[in-house]
């Protein structure tokens, strides 16, 4: 853990972790006995489910597209061959209602050929119909044509959060796959303007992809999309808007590589690559099928965890902690971090003392000290109207420096979620 330095006058600097020059070896986790996949639509166990396309006991193949009902359009790609053993409701950490589908893997693997047959056809349809949940979680819904128009695709070859090096790994070692991904994207989406954003050290490797290379600063939170928009692409996203509103779609390097290799080989990629950060800070790059439980990953890497440790999905600053080893690797799991119980900072329930450290570190110039007071009182609307809540780039630095150790960042995320909920509720009422 990085501690406050003796000289507290200067703001703390948090540098991104860079991929070392030595190529790290990729540890492959063997196919698990059971995988759990999440379908992005709610599951209500109490209604009659005769028309469901999936039932417990169904046999599925690797690469098969799984849909629960035809109408929601939500799907996942099975990452193993086997039998569906359970379908349950699941609530993700930010309160999204999802469906968890568990599959017991069979010993023999069989590959579903649907994508291989259809991928030859032109048009964007197949890209949307098969690769939305691909490793790296490509943000493809903006290309469906009905919504917003995208003029630029920004490939993020840097890692958004502090410790992972996953995307850098892809830029460095999967340049060919990224290259074919770029070709596919150009062809299918018609977007001509594609840039790749990388840290200084990867400029050369990124140059090999043939698209314009932009360099992002090495200090957190420079690689968060909203910060990249402002400092690298020179477009400030207005408060409350998204990058896509301005016509820029961010895709991770891994997502582009997934698209590339899917179209190159005719097989849907099913393994997620992520950085596993051990208690001593050591990093391993791991590849596991999406849906593999964290426990299986730990077993494969000989990692022991004990009670009161902390397991984090994603980065140190913005990730989420897991309550169980049974939770699976998802398509957007860029890192799994294990913190020893000794290393976990204690929090307090102190009020804000108005020290102003959060104000000085906030990259978005937010009046964080005022926000805290409003959010603690659940005055969300006021927070948006007068205290710039929607300008927050969600970096978590305010919580990181807070002397009172207030979970400001959590308040902000909850407030944003709540506001979004109110907004949709209002929209449907009209």
């Amino acid at each position, binding site marked *: *853990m990085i501690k406050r330095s003796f000289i507290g*006058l200067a703001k703390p600097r948090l540098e991104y972790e860079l991929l070392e020059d030595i190529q790290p070896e990729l540890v492959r986790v063997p196919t698990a006995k059971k995988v759990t996949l999440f379908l992005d639509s709610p599951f209500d166990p109490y209604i009659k489910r005769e028309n469901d396309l999936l039932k417990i006991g169904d046999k599925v193949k690797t690469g098969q597209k799984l849909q629960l009902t035809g109408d929601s359009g939500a799907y996942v790609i099975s990452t193993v061959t086997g039998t569906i053993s359970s379908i349950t409701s699941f609530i993700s950490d930010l309160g999204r209602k999802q469906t968890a589908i568990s599959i017991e893997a069979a010993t023999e693997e069989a590959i579903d050929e649907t994508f291989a047959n259809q991928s030859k056809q032109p048009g964007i349809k197949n890209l949307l119909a098969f690769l939305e949940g691909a490793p790296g979680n490509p943000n493809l819904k903006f290309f469906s044509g009905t919504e917003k128009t995208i003029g630029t695709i920004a490939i993020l070859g840097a890692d958004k959060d502090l410790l992972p090096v996953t995307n850098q790994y892809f830029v460095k070692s999967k340049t060919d796959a990224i290259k074919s991904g770029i070709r596919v994207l150009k062809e299918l989406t018609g977007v001509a303007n594609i840039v790749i954003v990388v840290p200084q050290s990867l400029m050369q490797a990124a140059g090999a992809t043939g698209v314009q290379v932009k360099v992002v600063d090495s200090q957190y939170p420079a690689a968060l999309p909203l910060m990249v928009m402002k400092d690298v692409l020179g477009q400030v996203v*207005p408060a409350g808007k998204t990058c896509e509103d301005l016509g820029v779609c961010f895709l991770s390097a891994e997502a582009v590589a997934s698209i590339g290799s899917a179209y190159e080989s005719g097989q849907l990629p099913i393994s997620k690559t992520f950085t596993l950060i051990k208690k001593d800070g050591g990093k391993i790059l791991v590849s596991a099928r999406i849906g593999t439980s964290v426990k299986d990953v730990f077993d494969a890497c000989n990692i022991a965890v004990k009670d009161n440790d902390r397991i984090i999905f994603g980065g140190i600053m913005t990730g989420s902690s897991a309550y169980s080893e049974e939770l699976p690797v998802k398509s957007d799991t860029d890192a799994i971090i294990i913190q020893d119980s000794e290393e976990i900072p204690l929090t307090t329930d102190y009020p804000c003392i*108005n020290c102003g450290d959060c104000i000085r570190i906030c990259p978005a110039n937010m009046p964080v000290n005022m926000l805290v007071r409003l959010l603690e009182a659940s005055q969300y609307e006021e927070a948006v109207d007068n205290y710039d809540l929607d300008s927050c780039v969600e970096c978590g630095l305010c919580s990181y420096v807070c002397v009172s150790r207030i979970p400001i960042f959590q308040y902000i995320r909850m407030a944003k979620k709540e506001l979004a909920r109110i907004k949709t509720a209002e929209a449907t009422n009209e």
Partner: protein
Amino acid sequence: MSNQKKFIVSHAPFWLDGSRISIRSYNLMIAALPALLFGIAQYGMPAIGVITLAISSAIIWEYLWDVITKQAVTIGDGNAAVIGLLFGMLLPATAPWWFVIIGTFIAVIIGKQIYGGIGANAFNPVLVAIAILMLSWKYVFNFDGMLLNYDFNFLAVYPLAALKHFGVSGIESFNMGDLLMGQQIGGIGTGFGLGLIIGGAYLIIRGYIRWEISASFIVGMFITAMLFNLSDSARFAGPLVHLFTGYTLIGIFFLATEDSSSPVNFIPMLIYGAGAGVLTVLIRNIGVYVDGVVFAILAMNLVSPLLDMIRPKAIGKVV
């Protein structure tokens, strides 16, 4: 499910930079040590008595409040101790015991807890107590009277009082170096200018107080004092006299910089500090009080929330 491991589940970020309120408090107290020890050397046992009584009574008041209002006991954060310490440092070494206890009661209970506790006080609790006491028991702050029985090897008159009553000629015998080195009477911890400056510099470097407030305080005071001095140099003392006497230096580094009652944005901090500096000199030169620091800072505390509305535009904000 019994063989499942139990993990700690909490919110991002999963690193914190390790700062906490108690560390802040201890550093404030460490920074106050040079000036405090000097004061104790100068005034002896009575000074030790006042300081220990002030710190302990402040802690006890806070403890009692916590118990009576059924809150978690907060004395561990050191904030009450800091309040007691700073309050004690402003008093003459001969302040009576009941006075100290009433003072810390006002500071901790009325100045801080009634507002809602740490972070919610609109005014600096120490100054609230001093201001109320000054109005009620004025004689305790008459340092010349209170310290009559001491024998010093320097001129034992309170410089600001001399200045008020006799003009610049009243303080002619003081030289700036001596004042800086604490060769003057005053509060227990307010006389040793050099010690306060060292403590302040430490706090600024460690990031526990903001240089913007201290620096602009000095500048504001300097310019105002200089203008007065230029207009009538027989009546109004020069800027250094103002800087090295009374509560000025402890005010600049330890009182005006209190977190809760001072602004947090850059420009507001500058205005706040400068305002306190200007007001201090105005009160001293044309007001009725001998020293102006207490009321100057309290006045700026009052406008601090307003000042803090001047803030940089958040990114992406169009209006």
